[in-house]
């Protein structure tokens, strides 16, 4: 492994143009992740056609690097403006934004930098050491029933966080699941709920919906606060977390690496579920649960470690099995195909150089998060000094381009603004936007894997639950639902 890693590093840093592509990926991913309104997906969608003119290794490496640094960059907007750069940063905002409001933005961003780097580097190391055995384990033990069970567990976690009441938490997730049913059904390809619009046959695109629910709805919330005279400018703070504070959360970091890596390795699940589940586990293991959501450092640490830990793991199903784990890894498949390559077991035999350049680049990209992140954090925090009336149109313009660019449809811009209006109204009524978005993202994956699982076990639910990993995840999901319901009802009985 070390020889291969050194060879990959030498290939990466031996060619000035490849170094340029690497640096562009690191800075581009970080910038597009950190600018509210656009995300790493916007940059990836713009760059996709240009990768045809790059070497295959450079093209794949560029996307892998953008994936690592963009996942970190999205945490900054989540913490500073309550606008997650990507869905995987949504749980970061639960505690990160209250920390900004409490004047602890520096501490939250500092923790995000460090934990993203730790999660990413740990994940890259495990990926380099064990891609093939882990992929083999996943092939043998993880099938559609397990993936459906994990989706169920993730949705159970999402329904219990972020809403004013448990009922609204469930309604949020269910609305997301209902939106996900728009478009063709994943088994028979039958059109559902397209209301006569051919563009809706492909379903609601994630990028505009996510931009609308997160970025546009936050702008509307701030507009309402401005109009009602309740707007408070976020407080700027340059105080970083101390080493002691971070050391006190070592168990949370370790747990989040494990959760993140496990979720990342499963095809189709990716970093979003990892962040939600890691946040849910942090709450479950904490003695002071009531402090979560009010600006607890552990919330930021858990979410950010897990989502970056999932980035390396997501490469395993992509490279070893040819299965993308999310939107950006799906674009990486397109990069492979542009160069007449197909990700999968053969790529390890036919293009080992490409694989090790990508692995080395991901390792160094995660390290660079630490270096560039710590140097640039103070500059980034100055974004808070820009008056919101000047930041809002910039975010809306960038979001418009972000929504339009992936499919070139004005309909997507309309969907984004509609999602923004719906998101604003739901947020102000106490619903959970991250719950809706997770339902939207996981809905189709859940349905597809449920259907495939049922076909596998010949519609025998007993056989479905006799699979150990599946049973454990279903039980954990059910326990999560029951415990959150118990906690909620106990609280409401006290208040009567």
């Amino acid at each position: 492994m070390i020889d291969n890693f050194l060879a990959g590093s030498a290939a990466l840093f031996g060619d000035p143009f490849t170094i340029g592509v690497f640096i562009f990926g690191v800075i581009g991913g970080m910038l597009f992740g950190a600018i509210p309104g656009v995300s790493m997906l916007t940059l990836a969608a713009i760059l996709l056609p240009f990768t045809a003119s790059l070497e295959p290794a450079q093209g794949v490496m560029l996307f892998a690097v953008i994936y690592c640094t963009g996942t970190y960059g999205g945490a900054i907007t989540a913490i500073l403006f309550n606008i997650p750069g990507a869905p995987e940063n949504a749980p970061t905002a639960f505690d990160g934004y209250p920390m900004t409001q409490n004047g602890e933005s520096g501490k939250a961003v500092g923790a995000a930098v460090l934990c993203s780097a730790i999660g990413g580097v740990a994940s890259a190391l495990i990926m380099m050491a064990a891609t093939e055995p882990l992929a083999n384990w996943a092939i043998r033990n993880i099938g559609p029933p397990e993936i459906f069970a994990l989706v169920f567990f993730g949705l159970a976690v999402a329904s219990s966080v972020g809403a004013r009441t448990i009922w609204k938490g469930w309604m949020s997730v269910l609305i997301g699941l209902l939106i996900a049913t728009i478009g063709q059904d994943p088994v028979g390809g039958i059109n559902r709920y397209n209301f006569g619009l051919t563009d809706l046959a492909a379903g609601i695109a994630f990028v505009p919906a996510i931009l609308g629910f997160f970025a546009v709805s936050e702008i509307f919330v701030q507009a309402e606060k401005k109009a009602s005279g309740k707007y408070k400018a976020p407080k700027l703070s340059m105080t970083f977390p101390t080493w002691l504070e971070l050391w006190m959360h070592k168990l949370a970091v370790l747990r989040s690496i494990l959760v993140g890596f496990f979720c990342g390795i499963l095809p189709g699940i990716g970093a979003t579920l990892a962040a939600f589940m890691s946040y849910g586990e942090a709450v479950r293991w904490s003695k002071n649960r009531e402090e979560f959501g009010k600006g607890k450092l552990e919330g930021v640490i858990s979410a950010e470690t897990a989502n970056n830990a999932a980035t390396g793991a997501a490469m395993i199903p992509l490279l070893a099995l040819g299965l993308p784990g999310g939107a950006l890894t799906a674009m990486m498949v397109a990069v492979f195909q542009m160069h007449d390559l197909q990700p999968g077991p053969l790529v390890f035999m036919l293009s080992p150089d490409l694989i090790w350049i990508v692995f080395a680049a991901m390792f160094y990209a995660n390290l660079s998060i630490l270096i560039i992140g710590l140097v640039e954090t103070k500059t980034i925090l100055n974004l808070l000094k820009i008056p919101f009336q000047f930041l809002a149109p910039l975010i809306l313009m960038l979001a418009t381009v972000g929504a339009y660019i992936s499919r070139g449809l004005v309909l997507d811009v309309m969907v984004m603004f509609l999602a923004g209006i719906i998101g604003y109204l739901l947020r102000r009524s106490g619903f959970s936007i991250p719950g809706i978005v997770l339902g939207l993202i996981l809905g189709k994956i859940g349905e597809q894997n449920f259907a495939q699982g049922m076909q596998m076990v010949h519609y025998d639910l007993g056989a479905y639950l006799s699979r150990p990993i599946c049973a454990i995840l279903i039980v954990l999901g059910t326990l999560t639902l029951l415990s959150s319901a118990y906690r909620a009802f106990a609280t409401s009985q006290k208040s009567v």
Partner: protein
Amino acid sequence: MGRLKRTHLVEAVLFLLIVAVFYAFSFEFNQPIEIYRFGATVWPRVVIGLLLIATLGNLWYQYRHGSASQGTIGQSDDEADYSEPGTIPRMIAVLLTPFIFAWLLKPVGIYFSAPFFIAAVIWLFGERRWSAILLITALIYFIFIGLFLVILNAPLPQGNMSPFYDFSAWILTMNAKLQGL
């Protein structure tokens, strides 16, 4: 009425309407799939059924406890406040302006409509100094043009109506000349 407010009833009616509409439209694709016993309708109908239960549960909770929070985790949003005079019309304008901008993208294109949209948003956010509105509008427009047109060459909506289309074409020609193409 218990502790129910009018907003709770409106919320419940809207969700029940969503349930009814999605259930009614599910008959449009209610056809068997040869390889899958449950067909295309079962998953959406289960979701609709659960949403109906959750909506009624939410209504029951609001009947007993009003808008009180239930101690769930991670919530950070307070309730909307429209008590200040003029908030509602201003919010309607804030919500509609981006939608009008999106609707105009096809005929007018982004290059022509963007400055008006940017200025309108700044104004709606409470800025009343014309010099600041013009300066910031110009700055954001140049950032947008510089990043997406000059650096990234991103294909953006150009409009399909004269003279807006001609304006977009002029901008693209200027960019091509700038880049020496």
